[in-house]
């Protein structure tokens, strides 16, 4: 790959105009080497887990001696993965819908209006995204248990909403700022009530932004370990937590291949969700068109 791109080593004065070498050769090689190392690590990690999940026994060889698909079936039954995946999807969908419903109006207001205390409110919405999940997760989990919500799916949903709502606000605000406010004024001048302005004009314009925020929240929620782990129990574990439990279960962890099979399932779920979500994102950016009015 490197040979197709990296410019051949040349002295600086030999560079002809239009030469594409932005990064001179030695550093270019360094970059490509770094990237290659990263890719090897990444592909190695991914493929070993997949190979491991199909191997009967695999210790001191390049490949397992025998192949089998039985770990998936075993894992599915042993960890009740049908239930776990249902919980995972349920939690993710509810968190996405609720955080978009709560976050979008707030993002609209923060993008469009100035009011006393706006800075403080911005900070309030920024904090859950930047402080460690454990920091607010532990007091929150303590409360959840004292409210009697410990180990319920509701608790898992609630704790996951804490960083998700601010996340929606942070991603949506710039999207809304891009929409020319005159468009809303124009709708009002056409006789549209506030409600109609939202449903007929703003909502269609915001669809790309909402989808982008929704996908990000979805990925974060499915992958969120810390917060879920603090409040979930056997009936409310999401996939990532139940894999962790399998890896660390007291009294000798589960068979390694079992965990690998679950990890593959996890990544598969994530990919399916991502691809499904990306199908709905309209690549034509309506918002961008507003700004690109030709001036001529």
């Amino acid at each position: 790959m490197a040979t197709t791109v990296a410019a051949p080593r040349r002295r600086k004065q030999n560079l002809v105009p239009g030469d594409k070498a932005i990064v001179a050769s030695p550093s270019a090689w360094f970059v490509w080497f770094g990237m290659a190392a990263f890719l090897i690590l990444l592909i190695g990690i991914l493929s070993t887990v997949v190979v491991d999940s199909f191997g009967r026994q695999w210790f001191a060889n390049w490949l397992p001696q025998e192949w089998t698909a039985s770990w998936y079936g075993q894992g599915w039954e042993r960890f009740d993965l049908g239930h776990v995946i249902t919980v995972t999807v349920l939690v993710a969908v509810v968190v996405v819908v609720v955080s978009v419903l709560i976050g979008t109006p707030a993002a609209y207001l923060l993008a469009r209006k100035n009011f006393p205390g706006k800075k403080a409110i911005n900070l309030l919405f920024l904090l859950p995204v930047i402080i460690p999940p454990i920091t607010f997760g532990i007091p929150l989990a303590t409360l959840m248990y004292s409210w009697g919500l410990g180990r319920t799916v509701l608790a898992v949903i609630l704790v996951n909403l804490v960083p998700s709502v601010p996340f929606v606000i942070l991603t949506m605000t710039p999207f809304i700022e891009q929409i020319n406010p005159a468009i809303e004024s124009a709708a009002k001048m056409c006789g549209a009530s506030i409600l109609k302005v939202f449903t007929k004009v703003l909502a269609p314009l915001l669809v790309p932004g909402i989808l982008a925020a929704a996908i990000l929240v979805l990925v974060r929620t499915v992958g969120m370990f810390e917060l879920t782990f603090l409040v979930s129990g056997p009936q409310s574990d999401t996939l990532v937590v139940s894999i962790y439990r399998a890896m660390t279960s007291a009294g000798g962890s589960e068979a390694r291949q079992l965990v690998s099979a679950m990890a593959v399932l996890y990544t598969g779920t994530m990919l399916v969700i991502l691809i499904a979500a990306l199908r709905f994102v309209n690549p034509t950016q309506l918002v961008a068109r507003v700004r690109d009015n030709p001036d001529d």
Partner: protein
Amino acid sequence: MSTSTFEALELRGVGRTFGGHEALKGLDLTVRRGEFIALLGPSGCGKSTALNCIAGLLPLTHGEIVAGDRRVDTLPPEKRGFGMVFQSYALFPHLTVERNVAFGLQMQGVPRHEQKQRVKDAIAMVKLEEHATKLPGQLSGGQQQRVAIARAIVLEPSLVLMDEPLSNLDAKLRLDMRAEIRRLHQSLGLTTIYVTHDQEEALSMADRLVVLRDGRTQQIGTPAELYDHPANWHVADFMGYRNLLDGTVTQIAGDTATVNLGSFELHGHVAGPLAASARVRVAIRPDDVVVTASAADAIDGNAIKATPSVVEYHGREFSVTALTDDGLRLNVKAATAPVQGEPATFTVRAERALVFPEELA
């Protein structure tokens, strides 16, 4: 929603403050049905504020607005029944031209078949028939502006508000659209309030002009009134009196004042309350200045000796910048080009040299 027409729209002491800043103060104006009013002034003068207050997009802080016998300043914009054309066009980017134009009709619940016909008529009116199914992003700036106009007039609003609608267009297109807007105004019998910073645009389109500065009304009148009799030197400046010369009154006789401008004296028309030896500003339009053969031929005894330093060809005429000996700059429009660098004598009729008091609030 009622879009009842009115015989007159009255603004009574309309004002708007932002924080402590008075963006608009004490605007009194009566707009008669069928009139074309231009709000004119430099940026930040309060003209857009005034327009947005009339539209209802900004709440008033002072005064009231009455349409016919109905007070409208307490109504939200969508209940006032006015149409508006925005500087940035503000077309709905996700809707086709047709659906942009139909939007207001849908909001009013106009029956579908009637909607269709009216949209068709409006689009024909702005000559966009072949673009009806395109999205705004696929149109040129001029076409987008036509859509914006069609969207505003399809509702047959009792008042059309236009906020610098031509400022994003190039010079030639601007001239075409000017005529177009004027034509629509007349043929549809619209009542229009038009905001612009371009005095030429305002003079050529409007029945009456309102000149604003720092949020305050400077003058209201017909184009001819403003052009010939600006109320103060600010309005004069805005109306193309490009020569503003500072001096002192030496003598006042009837409505003629003699002003000392340093190296020479000028006789001018008293255009404001003046006292002897007051500091004044003399306003002269470049096309009122004439080149003469000698000081003896000077009209009304106004002889200005100056040396042309820049001569620009402007088609039918020449735009000349000349400097007097003590450095006063004179802008002149001449039919024949004076020789650059060769001293010449310029003259102006006393009644076209307007003498204003220098001090203005």
